[in-house]
């Protein structure tokens, strides 16, 4: 009962700001509405007993990515960013695509046999994640960090060229 109530409340916390993100004409408000969405997803992670991912979600998404988006808006739009058109003339086409996608997802959802297996979920803590990163997934981990480093250096190179 409590779990269902939490799920409904969190879903509303995620969905209502998410609608504002794509419909608001004020781009700063759009960016800010991402915060409750991210925090709602954090709530889901906590319900799934993935505390570490929840902590990282707040730290990276709510604390850093939103701030980065806001920062970019304020620097590029001359600090305003009010009254931006978010839609173009292709609304009907987009709506059709969205409806088809929703239809497809629903079909897949209803046709899948959900195995409701009982038992304990696997151990899921910081130590397990850490050792998984440095053993089974070490290649992916290293490649990701290399990509991030390269994009960082690339950004600096592009920014310096203007001087």
């Amino acid at each position: 009962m409590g779990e269902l109530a939490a799920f409904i409340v969190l879903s509303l916390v995620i969905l209502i700001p998410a609608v504002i993100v794509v419909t608001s004409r004020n781009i700063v408000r759009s960016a800010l509405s991402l915060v409750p969405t991210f925090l709602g997803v954090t709530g889901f992670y906590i319900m799934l007993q993935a505390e570490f991912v929840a902590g990282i979600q707040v730290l990276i998404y709510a604390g850093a990515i939103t701030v980065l988006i806001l920062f970019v808006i304020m620097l590029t739009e001359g600090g305003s960013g009010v009254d931006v058109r978010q839609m173009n003339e292709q609304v009907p086409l987009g709506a059709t695509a969205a409806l088809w996608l929703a239809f497809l997802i629903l079909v897949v959802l209803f046709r899948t046999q959900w195995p409701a297996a009982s038992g304990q979920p696997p151990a899921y803590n910081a130590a397990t994640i850490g050792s998984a990163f440095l053993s089974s997934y070490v290649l992916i981990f290293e490649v990701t960090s290399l990509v991030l480093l390269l994009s960082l250096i690339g950004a600096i190179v592009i920014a310096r060229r203007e001087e």
Partner: protein
Amino acid sequence: MSTFVEILKAIGLAVLIFTFLAVVGAMYGVYLERKISGWIQVRYGPMHVGRWGLLQTIADTIKLLQKEHITPRRADVMIFNTAPIIVAVAGLLDWVVIPFGTGFGRYLVVRDINIGVVYFAAMASLTVIGILTAGWASNNKYALLGGLRSASQMISYEIPLALGLLWAAMIAGTLSTVGIVEAQRGGWFLFKVPPLGFLAALLFLAAATAEVNRVPFDLPEAESELVAGYFAEYTGMRFALFQLGEYAEMYAMSAMAAILFLGGWLEPNMPQWVWALLGIGALAMAAFIRFSVLRQVMLVRPILALAVLGAVICGLMVLGIGLGRTPVLPSIVWFFIKLFALVFFLMWMRWTYPRLRLDQLLNLSWKVLLPVGLLNILLTGLLLTVAQ
């Protein structure tokens, strides 16, 4: 039913912590700040409301409560009103994982989370959203500049802060704050693997000072160039909420530094003669100030007070060890001694050093603190692996 009890408990604890922060953190934090700034600038500070001005901030709070809320024309009203709440709540949420000590057979902490340190960093990073939006929503160029500066500063300094937290977590082998304190029973992390522990503590403290926007990292609210930075347009209680959030954050950072590097609520484990020596030293200093012409000089008076305080603590410790009590003072007392020592240190820094320039600030973070922190982690990891 148990959910209901849990919710009631959460509300009760939130009220408790909010009251603690509002009274001890913000009200007496401001009082301390004014008194210490007075001392450093050789003046008295607040003196008239109550004895030694003790009731000054209470009077100020009552005044602020009566003030009109002014919303600037063309400000984004909704965001303008939300921003102070975000800052205050983020400052408040930090305190969930701070353990105050032990008592009644349990740890005095709201919740001992197994990701305590990550949680702390995450909540500290939420403050910046409030500050940035406050600056933007005010529709004021100074506020916007303050908000933007704060965003670049806080994002840069979050990394050294996280590296400092990570170092302590590595040594302790846990992310829980209670676990980190328990791991320091053998000795403070400050002196662990010298000089790496000291380096990590320095890193954390520098980054924490920058995170709470205090001098020498107070560019977001530099009075002399930006009026007051991001809260320039806020009046009355909204302004007070920003102050509350800022002081709550500062106290939380000090508490975290005490937990990570100074052993939290644990009593320093020193033999009796060391305490006696320290006490005699403090007493000699106090006597020298009291019975010489120096007592006329305002600048040394707080040193007299601090020396007497230190002598009293050392005397109690000597007495307690002599009587054979093992934790001589209650753990919560030790926690507050360490907390206030760090708070005092931060205030002392604020009124002593000039402000950094923006480029110096960012260079310090990216070219000094970040490489040092990474090297520190690498070396510690190497040593830990070798030691195993």
